[in-house]
């Protein structure tokens, strides 16, 4: 490990919330020790006071009451000691459990990462072979062979997308999703996205429209990641809209810029609104292709940009998604 790497690790460790909790608990435990010491001093002082000042004679020790008293003081002290030990053990156990959970979670997201990577090499081979086949590199295809081939190609594309999404989720959950920010014009990003979705919307007989002001609206953001967010919103809108259209609208209001994706589709039931942005959650009829990762990834990306994403919708009334981002200059 090079020194800067080491330093970065150290910084990460310092920022680790669990580490922080542990440190604060240690501090608390040492305060507890002081408090305990103080607490045990008080009965001892009282005891000394009683013996020396109040009774001023050793006869008190001979009296049965005095014996009881001393016995009680010692018991109380032992109780306090035991209680302190119990509290310490409980806290330690909780911290350990928490740490194990944390480790398990990183392991899990590392596993997802690993598996997704393992998928890519074989996928490349399958895709390559299928594309060679499609392009007639192994001889001319009969019309009967074209259909299963097209089907396979489509599924490979889907697998490829899911693998990419799983990798993103893995990165998000392990906090490793890094943004490559630059100053970019939102109009350009949205134009590219709507252009990319044009074919799908035409195929579905939908009108796809982009409304944006002339004046360029700039944001300091990761171009690929933002495109990914809007691409998912627009594809969703098209997927879940049987007829009508999809509007993408860009507006600026002071320091905030807002992108809206509105459709005239089947909408979302009130009780489902809460789980849309949770990974693997899909609502409604489930008749459309997808893995339920798009919106979870979108939310993470938008929030990494210090933005906010939300939806307003009702069953059969269309859906209206909003993304608000801090604007630049």
């Amino acid at each position, binding site marked *: 490990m090079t020194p800067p790497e080491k330093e970065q690790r150290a910084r990460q460790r310092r920022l680790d919330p669990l580490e922080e909790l542990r440190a604060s608990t240690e501090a608390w435990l040492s305060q507890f020790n002081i408090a305990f010491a103080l607490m045990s001093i008080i009965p001892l002082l009282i005891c000394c006071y009683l013996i020396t000042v109040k009774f001023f004679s050793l006869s008190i020790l001979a009296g049965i009451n005095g014996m009881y008293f001393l016995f009680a003081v010692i018991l109380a002290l032992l109780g306090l000691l035991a209680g302190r030990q119990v509290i310490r053990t409980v806290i330690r156990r909780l911290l350990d459990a928490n740490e194990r959970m944390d480790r398990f979670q990183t392991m899990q997201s590392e596993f997802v990462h690993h598996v997704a990577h393992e998928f*890519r090499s074989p*996928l*490349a*081979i399958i*895709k*390559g072979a299928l*594309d060679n086949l499609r*392009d007639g590199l192994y001889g001319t295809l009969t019309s009967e062979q074209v259909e299963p081939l097209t089907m396979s190609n489509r599924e490979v594309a889907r697998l490829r997308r899911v693998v990419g999404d799983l990798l993103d989720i893995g990165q998000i959950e392990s906090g490793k999703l890094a943004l490559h920010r630059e100053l970019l014009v939102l109009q350009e990003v949205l134009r590219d996205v709507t252009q990319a979705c044009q074919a799908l919307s035409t195929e579905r007989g939908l009108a796809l429209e982009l409304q944006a002001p002339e004046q360029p609206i700039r944001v300091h953001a990761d171009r690929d990641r933002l495109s990914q967010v809007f691409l998912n919103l627009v594809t969703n809108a098209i997927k879940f809209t049987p007829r009508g259209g999809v509007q993408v609208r860009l507006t600026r209001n002071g320091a905030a810029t807002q992108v809206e994706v509105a459709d005239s589709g089947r909408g979302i039931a009130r009780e489902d609104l809460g789980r849309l942005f949770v990974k693997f959650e899909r609502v409604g009829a489930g008749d459309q292709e997808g893995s339920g990762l798009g919106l979870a990834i979108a939310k993470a990306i938008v929030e990494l940009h210090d933005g906010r994403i939300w939806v307003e919708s009702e069953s059969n009334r269309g859906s209206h998604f909003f993304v608000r981002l801090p604007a630049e200059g």
Partner: protein
Amino acid sequence: MGVATGKTVLFADDEESMRKVLERRLTAWGCRPIAATNSLDAVRLARERRPDLILLDDTMPGLTGLAACHQLKLGEDTRHIPVLVLTARDSRTLAAEVRTAGADGFLQKPFEFTELLQLIEGALAQPQPLRS
């Protein structure tokens, strides 16, 4: 006829199926393919055969594709040959590594052949630094 026609392309991948797929495609583009099964093989073949372009898989046992690329770019007789890296790893962390290794481009697996052809043509069209 494209820029790639008639060019000798050395490619390395440890997976036989991938080599077969690539070989078929490169031939269809009119290239003369040379296959290598690992990085050391690729470096050796590059020195012996002086191809016009080299395609390296990144994750091969032994020397990685990027390390091989670095070696090729250090070699007097091979540094002028454009190198493209194909990888199953994450492209975002990779971009910097690829640049450091001196590669002329990279593609993430699985990729479209049209993308690969574009990269190849771009790399072949680029004026290469003179051999010194």
